[in-house]
């Protein structure tokens, strides 16, 4: 198997969608057996580039060369036939099939009647050569995210796809799992068994495991080089260019406040009736940010849903300033609890209603929008919306545009505008910067920090450990539906947190 890694070169790739030039004359060269990182912000054209290579899009201009030979890739099927495979951010394994079934059916020549005895023997022989193991006889739906990720990679190797494109492969893994997997892939690349092109946002991983990198910005090539030699500041300069980034709000030192938010023994079930969170205990003081770290799917979503009233608690209670808090609209108002849930377009807005209406969700039944508690007048509502749009720099066609027409960052800003414009005592935030570009990220993190400085108790749930290390005063780690570790941020480090994320 050694020495079979292909090299791939894409030359002068251009792709235009209507008025948008998604890819403008981009070239990339991936040597045989290299572990190549593709860097860039959201919307920089990374996905477009790999989708052109994979045959999902046909490039308007440009050619792809595999081992120096030009190849025509018109569909994902052609890519597969040429030994080019991709692991997507959303898994493509079929949840109800077992690992073995998934592998066998993914073969183009899957037999009409499957002789399992023969296939199992073949699979065992194949697995014996592989650097990692995954249970093959349980349905994929019961595997952990890390195992699924490994199975996706095994599938590519099983199909003999030796040029693999990985799209942010570590976003669902613990730091430990991520390092293990990248290390193994790096080893295979070193032995010239595979060639890897990895889309990533994480400089740490790029520096530790990749040997080359290419950077895109706004659809253009902005740099490439040796990942070991080029420093992180240089790489990030290539990624963001000369965009001015708003100064981060500084952390204000102040004396510890009183306990503001208390979660006492919270239990809740997931949609299948299995325990999603178990015995969650946590206190958040006024003027403090507590970050909840954890690998996606360890109960964080259920916790935020329970706090925002979207999921019933089966036991335990939420207390604010020592008083029992029932997550209902009236209580949110009385206790000044505000929130920024993940996927705000889905969880915090009504997509087809206008920006003005969405901005008024907290205040439509109060003066000046409402008279006598029920008579709504759109005038003041639109006025208020205009003010918030200007203050929070929400880019929209106007207050009457449906909120679903806004970009992700602007939906996030609009929700922030609604939630932060008043007096905030408690703020619950979940993955606030997921999928946003550098400038928006800085902006939103500053807003959260400002609320803390003004004395709000902030609960920040995030899958991005860097975000927590930057913002939080204390960190709590969630694993298996419960909080198993709490520490002040200065008393802990990435490794310790990572170990607790893995449940140790």
């Amino acid at each position, binding site marked *: 198997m050694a020495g079979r890694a292909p090299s791939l070169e894409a030359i002068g790739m251009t792709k235009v969608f209507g008025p948008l030039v998604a890819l403008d004359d981009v070239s990339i060269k991936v040597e045989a057996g290299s572990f190549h990182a593709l860097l860039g912000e959201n919307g920089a054209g990374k996905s477009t580039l790999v989708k052109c290579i994979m045959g999902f899009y046909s490039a308007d201009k440009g050619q792809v060369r595999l081992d120096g030979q030009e190849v025509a890739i018109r569909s994902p099927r052609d890519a597969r036939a040429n030994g080019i495979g991709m692991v997507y951010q959303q898994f493509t394994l079929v949840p109800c*099939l077992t690992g073995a079934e998934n592998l066998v*059916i993914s073969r183009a020549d899957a037999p009409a009647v499957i002789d399992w005895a023969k296939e199992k023997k073949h699979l065992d022989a194949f697995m014996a050569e592989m650097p990692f193991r995954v249970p093959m006889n349980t349905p994929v739906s019961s595997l952990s995210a890390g195992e699924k990720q490994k199975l996706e990679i095994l599938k590519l190797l099983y199909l003999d796809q030796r040029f693999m494109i990985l799209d942010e492969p570590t976003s669902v893994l613990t730091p430990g799992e991520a390092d293990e997997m990248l290390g193994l892939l790096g080893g295979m690349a070193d032995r010239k068994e595979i060639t890897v092109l990895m889309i990533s946002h994480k400089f740490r991983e790029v520096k530790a495991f990749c040997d080359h990198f290419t950077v895109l910005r706004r659809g253009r090539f902005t740099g490439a080089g040796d990942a070991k030699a080029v420093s992180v500041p240089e790489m990030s300069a290539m990624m963001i260019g000369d965009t001015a980034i708003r100064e981060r709000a500084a952390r204000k030192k102040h004396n510890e406040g009183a306990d503001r938010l208390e979660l006492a023994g919270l239990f809740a079930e997931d949609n299948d009736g299995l325990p999603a969170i178990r015995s969650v205990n946590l206190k958040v003081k006024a003027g403090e940010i507590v970050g909840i770290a954890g690998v996606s799917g360890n109960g964080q979503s259920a916790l935020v849903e329970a706090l925002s009233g979207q999921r019933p608690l089966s036991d335990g209670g939420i207390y604010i300033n020592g008083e029992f808090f029932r997550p209902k609209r009236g209580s949110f108002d009385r206790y000044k609890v505000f929130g920024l849930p993940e996927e705000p377009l889905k969880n915090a807005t009504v997509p087809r209603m206008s920006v003005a209406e969405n901005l008024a969700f907290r205040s439509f039944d109060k003066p000046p929008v409402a008279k006598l508690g029920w008579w709504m007048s759109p005038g003041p509502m639109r006025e208020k919306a205009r003010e918030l749009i200007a203050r929070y720099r929400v880019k929209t066609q106007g207050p009457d545009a449906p909120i679903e027409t806004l970009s992700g960052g602007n939906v996030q800003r609009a929700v922030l505008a609604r939630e932060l414009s008043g007096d905030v005592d408690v703020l619950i935030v979940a993955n606030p910067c997921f999928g946003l570009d550098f400038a928006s990220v800085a902006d939103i993190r500053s807003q959260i920090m400002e609320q803390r400085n003004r004395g709000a108790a902030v609960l920040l749930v995030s899958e991005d450990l860097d975000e927590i290390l930057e913002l939080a005063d204390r960190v709590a780690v969630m694993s298996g539906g419960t909080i198993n570790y709490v520490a002040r941020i200065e008393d802990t480090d990435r490794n310790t947190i990572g170990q607790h994320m893995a449940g140790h």
Partner: protein
Amino acid sequence: MDNALVTVLIAMLGGAIRVSTPFMFVALGETLTEKSGRINLGLEGNLVLGAMVAYAVSYLSGNAWLGVLAAGGSGLCLGALHGYICKLPRVNDIAVGIAMMSFGTGLAFFFGKPFIQPSAPRLDAIPLGDWTGNPALAQALQVNPLFFVGIALAVFMFWAFRNTRWGLIVRMTGDSAASAKAMGVSVDLVRFLATAAGGFLAGIGGAFLSLYYPGSWNQGLSSGQGLMAVALVIFARWDPIKCIFAALLFGAAGALGPSLQSIGISQGYYFFNAAPYILTLIIMIISAGSKASARDVPGELSITK
């Protein structure tokens, strides 16, 4: 009293064997369709149209088995129509299913008028109980070959969902259309074929109604068996073998009323006749109440999304 109990049990056994067959075929057809990620609520229409076509063809040709085949064909056409309509963008399979149910029964009543009076050749049963010497048992063990075809089919489907390429592709399409597409499988085509094949089976279930038990064609022939069978699929957790047991259970429950009457218990006759329906309700409440069972549901069904 012991004797009476035996009589009731034998009658229920006979009922289970006799009444279960149409449930079986419709439920197996629906299982296939739902495993591919689509719901066809219109199988009641296939059942009634199948019954009419079977009776008509049997009457006109003099061959009952030709009727069975024609019934399957009519079901295939209705299923294919459902499959085709659902392929169009922004079409809801449940709404189409309800429309197809009215369409199928309407079509059957329209063309079936002339066949209510005449008597057509019927399917023969295999007497399996003559050796017992007990006339009641012998009568209960008069088994129609279609019953065995249904059981064989269920076993085959159970095997095929695990051991054939087509079985895996159907399950894949039903659980994750995105994965199927990524593998180059045409999701629409798989669902079209699965719906058509499901319709075929439901049509055969209809043939059993008009050609064996009750064994005539009239407008009140089906009392919602087609709808009930769709509910059975949920009860059976999309498992063909469990479909057979569910169908037998329903058949036995349906025979409860008449058999109690035959031993002189006529009090609550209508209540016992409603047993299958009450059973449906109870089963649905229980199975909906257990959240863990939601795991067996094919992920692409429009009720789960």
